[in-house]
């Protein structure tokens, strides 16, 4: 039975390209909008890719910049220089 992983980001200019990258790269996401925040749910796993965000913002981007926009997350975290991945094993 799939378990939902989730990432919640502030609804700001900084986070907008990240949200776009996530929904483009991860099929079958559900995006919930609440006051000031966006919550993205997906079954089993979700990945934020550095290249995908960089394409959208036109500069180098460090996945750890997510810390500036993150409100909450659910799932086990695996992170490296090129990605930030949440999943349930």
């Amino acid at each position, binding site marked *: 039975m799939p*378990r939902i992983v989730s990432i919640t980001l*502030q609804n700001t200019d900084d986070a907008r390209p990240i949200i776009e990258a996530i929904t483009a790269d991860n099929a079958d996401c559900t995006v919930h909008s609440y*006051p*000031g*925040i966006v919550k993205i749910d997906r079954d089993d796993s979700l990945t934020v890719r550095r290249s995908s965000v960089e394409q959208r913002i036109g500069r180098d981007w*460090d996945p*750890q*910049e997510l*810390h*500036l*926009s*993150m*409100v*909450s*997350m659910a799932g*086990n*975290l695996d*992170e*490296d*220089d090129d990605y930030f991945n949440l999943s349930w094993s």
Partner: protein
Amino acid sequence: MNAPAKLGLKQRYSLLTHGLDWKPSYQPMDKIYPYAEFEGIKIHDWSKWEDPFRLTMDTYWKFQAEKERKLYAVLDSFSQNNGQMGLSDPKYVNAIKLFLTGITPAEYQAHRGFAHVGRQLPGVGPRVAAQMQSLDELRHAQTQIHTLSHYNKFFDGFHEFTHQHDRVWYLSVPKSFFDDARTSGPFEYFIAIGFAFEYVLTNLLFVPFMSGAAYNGDLATVTFGFSAQSDESRHMTLGIEVIKFLLEQDPGNLPIVQKWVDKWFWRGHRVLGLVAMMMDYMLPKKIMSWREAWEIYFTEAGGSLFQDLARYGLKVPKYADVATAEADHISHQNWLTFYQACHAAGFHTWLPTDEEMGWLSEKYPTTFDKYYRPRIELFREMEKDGKRFYNNALPQLCSVCQIPMVYTEKDDPGTISFRSSEYKGDKYHTCSDGCKDIFDNEPEKYSQAWLPVHQIFQGNCGGATIEEVLKWYKLNLGADNLDQAGSPDQKMWDEWMAARSRVAG
């Protein structure tokens, strides 16, 4: 010439944290880490700890500094633009008086608690994570103080929060919660705060206050809230790693951890009763009811979590069913306590309007009209007669949670749930089976409680009269306390609004 290859994130992190640890060669482990064994927790292999986040100190400083720059820019703007005039209603400010005096000192306590754990655990991974959380908590204390200092320029009740933390009767509730956690061993602290508070219960604290701020025009608090939440997501992943690590290390850890989960779920639930009343009674524009929040963040989310942890043998916290039943009652019970006791509190209270009572009726269909509407109607009658009710007696306090014993039996909401225990020839009263169990498990600890009501009777709180005690609390009488109606806060607000409509023409 080729540029030298950079180390990957995982390698960098490992070298700068685990790589800087060492095996002691001339001092025994138990001298360096004297608190590591006495709780009975067994760790066989610290290297099995999975780092919840891989932030090296340089990236930590970089990102935290960026968050600070953004936060203070918003606070400056709020201040310059007199943002406090955009609040939905001056009653709202009382919610954040409660937050600053009740929660902010607890952030500082958390800072100290994680600093201790960050030194005392033999494993380098959890030490690093705890040290970062310690810095986060200090940051939260500081940013909350800055955020709320703007309100202190205009509104009463903010001016002595550090002094009051150690003295005022209702503030002993969050204080004793953290005193209990910090005087426990490092593993219990980690489960109490890292897991029970920061994972299981955290959303029940933050979402209501921050959403409440958003709905009521408090941009300053919203901004602080979002800024802190990005730190909180790290705390949550630390909390879940702590419990998994302990349960995976040795089957003998399970009964110890279960006891701690039961205890700290219950203590956390009691403290969150203050948030319940804030949500249901103190927000002019309401987000959702406490009952709804409990359903989403505990029953559903918590249910899912404990299902996952069941594979280790961990059970849903004891008395979770009682807490869930209480979700229909505690906000009303707590508010009506402060209603009658706010002559001795640092914030104002009031009775709900007819419209608000309609909302409460709808949100609490099985309890509000039966038990609490009549009580409010009686208080209204007394206000009409010019005899607004202030209870001049001091209440019986629970020896564990230190809240006035206002909670009622699960199957009989008209009867207070009195519980008591004997220890060394004295009686000790508790408000519930949850608190009684906590007392009975460690009577040596709770028999030492500094209970505000008893301390007043012993003459340790400035004098025998209520007035002397309130002065000892450094409450400004006639300003910080009593009903919202007639308060200096309300008068000032009415003048602002009158001036504004004059200007608008």
